């Protein structure tokens, strides 16, 4: 036995102090690791009382691994290992961690700047990169939003710092810009009068700042106006809806046309006018035979066609001339 140990060179290694050290290490591990586990459990129970299951799990892991690491390090130290080397490795690890946590660090710093700058507070409604929502919380790494259709959105702070954020609830009043188009034939004085009366009649439209009616331009199919009315922020959506509804009903009442896009078609001064055939509407009666081809017997309910030269004749005579021409 001694020969085997001697040949392996272990005889010099296994000395009494070292054996005692190993024994101490074993005792440490034997007592320390279970203690660490108990401590982890206690931490988890404390965390569960104050937080949720996830924080309990996190607390257990953090406490256990920290204590286990301490116990292991002490045990290794007892066995004679020098832990200075590990510190060097820790330096390299830090660099690697730094690269890995670039984004998180950026979010953290952005969060600190946001807290200092206060472009918005919890409860404001913001629009960032196309998403609009109410701010639920401004955390270290991100801002949590609730969209108006009740979806939860997490926006990283870095994205907020880098992009344009619109705070819709910073100022107490807001202007609704309504685009109104009227036909070219309309009397613009009357249009202006009607629009300003609509604003005056609605008590939620602010008297001041005064409603504005701005002529935007001579459009392709219509005259374009911008009608701007101010309202308190809370009433904004209601005012914008009601004013537009009122515009439609008042224009209908006054006979003012909001035109569809249209094209005017000229054949030119030199060419003849295009021939146009007027088609009378198909009479709606149950005797219609769906199998009959149109343009057959004029009495079977098919559309009656009038030739252009008969178009000047009164409608009462069109039936006869249609029969004559078909």
């Amino acid at each position, binding site marked *: 036995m001694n020969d085997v140990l001697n040949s392996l060179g272990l005889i010099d290694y296994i000395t009494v102090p070292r054996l005692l050290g190993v024994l101490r290490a074993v005792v440490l591990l034997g007592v320390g690791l279970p203690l660490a586990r108990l401590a982890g459990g206690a931490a988890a129970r404390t965390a569960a009382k104050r937080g949720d299951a996830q924080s309990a799990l996190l607390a257990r892991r953090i406490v256990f691994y920290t204590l286990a690491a301490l116990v292991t390090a002490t045990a290794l130290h007892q066995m004679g290992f020098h832990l200075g080397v590990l510190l060097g490795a820790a330096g390299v690890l830090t660099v690697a961690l730094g690269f890995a946590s670039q984004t998180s660090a950026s979010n953290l710093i952005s969060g600190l700047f946001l807290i200092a700058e206060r472009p918005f507070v919890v409860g404001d409604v913001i629009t960032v990169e196309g998403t609009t929502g109410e701010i639920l919380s401004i955390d270290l790494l991100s801002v949590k939003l609730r969209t108006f259709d009740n979806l939860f959105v997490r926006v990283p702070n870095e994205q907020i710092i880098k992009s344009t954020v619109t705070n819709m609830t910073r*100022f*107490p009043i807001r202007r609704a810009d309504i685009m109104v188009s009227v036909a070219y034939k309309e009397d613009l004085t009357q249009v202006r009068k009607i629009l300003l009366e609509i604003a005056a*009649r609605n008590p*939620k439209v*602010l008297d001041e*700042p005064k409603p504005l009616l701005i002529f935007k331009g001579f459009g392709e199919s219509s005259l374009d106006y911008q009608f701007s009315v101010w309202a*308190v922020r809370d009433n904004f959506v209601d005012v914008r809806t009601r004013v537009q509804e009122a515009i439609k009903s008042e224009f209908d009442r006054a006979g003012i046309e909001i035109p569809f896009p249209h094209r005017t078609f000229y054949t030119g001064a030199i060419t003849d006018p295009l021939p146009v055939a007027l088609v009378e509407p198909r009479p709606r009666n149950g005797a219609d035979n769906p199998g009959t081809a149109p343009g057959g017997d004029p009495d079977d309910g098919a559309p009656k066609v009038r030739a252009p030269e008969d178009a000047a004749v009164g409608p009462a005579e069109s039936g006869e001339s249609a029969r004559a021409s078909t």
Partner: protein
Amino acid sequence: MMVAESMTGSHGTWWGEFGVATGRRWRIGPLDLWIHRATHEWRVSFQRGDDPLEDTLRPGEPTDEAPPDSAETLRFGFREVLGKVELRPRLADRSVVVRPANPFYLTGGEEATLYLSSPLWIEVRVGVPWQALCEIPVFQPSDTWSGVRPTAGELCYALVTSARLHLSNLPARPQRAFSALRVRNSTESRIHVERIKVPVPNLSLFATSSGQLWTETVTLELATERERSEVRFDAGPSILAADARRIGDPRQSDRKGFLRGAFDELFALKDRDYERRAE
């Protein structure tokens, strides 16, 4: 500038205590008001016309008819319903920005008194001791913003008024409260009186023997140094309402809050340029 002349006509008071068997109906200016009493509830119904200056007045007539479906109804449940209701007139719950239909100039050292009529709110009260059920405006005035800039200011009511400078031109309006507003220009330059913010929540209500309601007279004095400008409240209304007695206290007794920063809005010292900038 002021000519003393008695207010014409007496329409009788529409406010005060009324006994209610099943129901009563009032017509106060543009407002139709019904108050009905049932075993364990009070029902208050109302609907309004469009004209804020409508003069019709029909004080509470007993009625059994139900209000029309188009009227808005508020119901109040009670264990025990006593047979009395009180209508109490009140002033607006916000400051009122008055814009004379024809703004006028006031040269340095001059003073003008404007007579305005402002809409009333009706507080319906029942029970012993009196408990307020609701408050209904006789006419819903338009909102307006009193800040010089749209980023800060105060929500007020707008009153476009003929802002008469002569009391005899003011017809009796029992459904509105008159105020005399004295504007004094103690500066050396001319001012254009285009809009005035009146601290209505700080005003009390008075009633003359003829049933016309008044507030106390308010004096707005503009001095060359902004800090020396001030707003003063008289103890009572104009001398033309000498027999008036107080019937209501101000909604807000703190008058200092109004004085701070009020003068930019009181007189059109700055152009409201934000609305003129190019689109």
